């Protein structure tokens, strides 16, 4: 029934969101010429994976993974994905930082951060021996 179809969508909204973000990020990386936009695209892609990873740790009807006195157990939300994703976010940040520093260097060398303009410059001096 159509109603259960929408319930299905709602239950799996994290997968749909992750897939959409992944594709949006990929599209941004591959189509834009501006380097900063490419880096933003990479970040979007990483965000999509983090979203998926964290969301799959959720357990229905479970309590947050914090032990209180007298708590005998019962289902807890899985804390492991969150911990992993913290690491992942750090990795993503370091990639962004490194990429941005290279963009600064490129800007200093070429005066522009648009890929097509840089390629034109490179092709025009392609005859001279490069280092």
């Amino acid at each position, binding site marked *: 029934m159509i109603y259960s179809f929408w319930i299905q969508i709602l239950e799996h909204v994290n997968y749909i969101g992750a897939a959409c973000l992944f594709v949006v990020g*990929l*599209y941004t*990386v*591959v*189509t834009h010429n501006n380097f900063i936009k490419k880096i933003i695209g990479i970040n979007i892609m990483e965000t999509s994976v983090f979203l998926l990873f964290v969301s799959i740790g959720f357990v229905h009807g479970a309590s947050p993974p914090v032990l209180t006195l007298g708590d005998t157990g019962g289902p807890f939300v899985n804390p492991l994905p969150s911990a992993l994703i913290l690491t992942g976010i750090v990795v993503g940040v370091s990639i962004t930082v490194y990429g941005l520093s290279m963009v600064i260097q490129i800007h200093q060398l070429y005066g522009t951060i648009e*890929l097509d303009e840089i*390629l034109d410059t490179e092709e025009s001096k392609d005859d001279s021996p490069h280092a």
Partner: protein
Amino acid sequence: MSGDNTNNDCAPCVPCAQESLFSRSCIALLTISFVLVGAFIAMTLIGDAVFYLPVLRQVFSFRYYPLLLVAVPLLSGPLQAALGYRSAWLRDLTAVTTTFVTFLFILAMYPQLLTDSIYNTIPAVFGYGLHFHVDWLSYVMVSVSGILWLLVTIYAHEYMAPEEHQDRFYLWMSVTLGGVLGTVMASDILTMFLFFEIMTFSSYMLVAHNESAESLLAGNNYIYMGVAGGLAVLVAMILVLFSTKTLQFTYLAAELAETGWIQYAVAALLILGFGVKAGMLPVHIWLPKAHPVAPTPASALLSGVLIKIGAYGILRVATSFFMPAAGPLMSRDNPLWNLSHVTGAAVIWIGILTMAVGVFMALQQSNMKKMLAYHSISQMGYIIMGAGVAAYLGYYGAMGFSGAVYHTVNHALFKSLLFMVAGVVYLRYHELNMYNLGGLWRKLPVTFVVCIIAALGITGMPFFNGFASKSILHHAIDEAYTYGHGSFRYAEVVFTIVSGGTVCSFIKLISYTFLGRCPEKIATVPNTGNRMMQMAMGGVAVLIVGIGVFPGYLMNTFIIPATRSFTYDPAFIDRYLVDMNFFNSHDLMGTVRVYALGFAIFFVGKKLHLFHLHLPKWLSVEYVMYKPLQSAVLRVSRHITTNYETKANNADVYIYAALLMGSLLMLTVFFR
């Protein structure tokens, strides 16, 4: 000035102490060699007991001769290159001594072959070990290589004197000898492949020695085709190992017969791979380019020995991989001979084609060395045809086998002699075009006599060596249509015509080069300093005449034992091959016919100026097949690179993204 003559003009050098020391050593070594050969022949005729005299037993029972034979030239090459820095004559003397010592070892190996063939192994190399095995077929090849290398090295001293980079030449010549000996003594196909590649690469250095533009082009042609041929052999090797679990040259017809299409693929690849080396059509095009540009000693060795290795390879696989094991039930109609029949028929026709095209192209040439190169192709056609008959007739193939082996020996001798003659002419007069020469019989008398001997040898005059092998090959092709398919009658017709063409071509060579009137610019060139070269050429000529006068000796001592070691009908061998009467009337009449045909073609050709006609350039195999292939590969690579590489690499990423998404999609949706 020391004894080497490194200036570029051809003025004969003043003999000094070292030169005469070299000459005297060469004369001594050559005389010793001939005495030893004479003694050897005497001993083989007297009987085997002579070899067990106590004084010689030590020498004759040494078991590691094959390893020595391979190691000595390979090690002496760098030694010669190092010596060449100090003095040239010492290097040349070392080269001659090395080849002499190698020849001694070859002679000393003989007695062990009478009882049992020699096996040597170096374990653990390549994971399978290197295996050497000297049987009669290998021994024939080894001895002809050994004696020819000795004579050519003596010749090379005077010829190479005005050349540059002599150290490099001697280094690679020595390494090539090691490679050749290793190839023919190999007992499994992997060892043979190793030495085959060593031989190809070291002979490349001989071909490209002059470093002129056309030498480099010829060298490129040679090495690419050599590498391609080697790769074909490699693929065949892998298929054989996979299907039959062995690499040794043992009788594999039974195992191969069960593999279906693989046996035909193996046969085709092996014939093609070895055929590149042998100058077989259609992969012969490197030969006419490589021979004129290589220095003459290298041409003599290339034509004399190296292309025979290709034919040896075909013979070796025909007598092992395609041959069933002997047994009490072996007969001519045994179905295990099927692969041999099919392969043999194809090879016979390829051989006939090679013969015909070789002679036809040779008649058009004016460059002496190019003409001789085409004749090499033609004579290799004879040998390949003989090998084809051996495979085709299967159990009755002993005649074809003997013809092929005998012609290998003979062609090595007379072709290298012809190249040496051309080399002397070039060295003295810097002219290779026949039409610009003439009247040299007065100026180079020894060379003239030697050239006549070689020409009579190659054309098949009785009492010279070519007669015996051509008669055997003629018998072989007769048997092919007697016992086999009738269409080989036409093959015999082509055989006769090609022999006539050969006669004509050599009449042309001798009459234009040596007879007639001497042109002005040649008449005035002085002419001395040929002694060593004349001695070497004389040595080969003596061998040619010797084999020609006693053709049965070679047959009985070497070739018939070789045929007995394979699965050939012993009754057939006894009836037709043992004590064959070479000087029978049928063959002698055939020779007269061939000579008449040759003279006729020559006079018709001269009258109608047919020799100056040339095939249009676009009709050669090269233009039709190779040039388009090579330029296509290069063009396609450049096209793909320029158009797609920049697009793909420099972020034309729609393609990239499409590929990504496509691969993801394919993996998740289509593979369930």
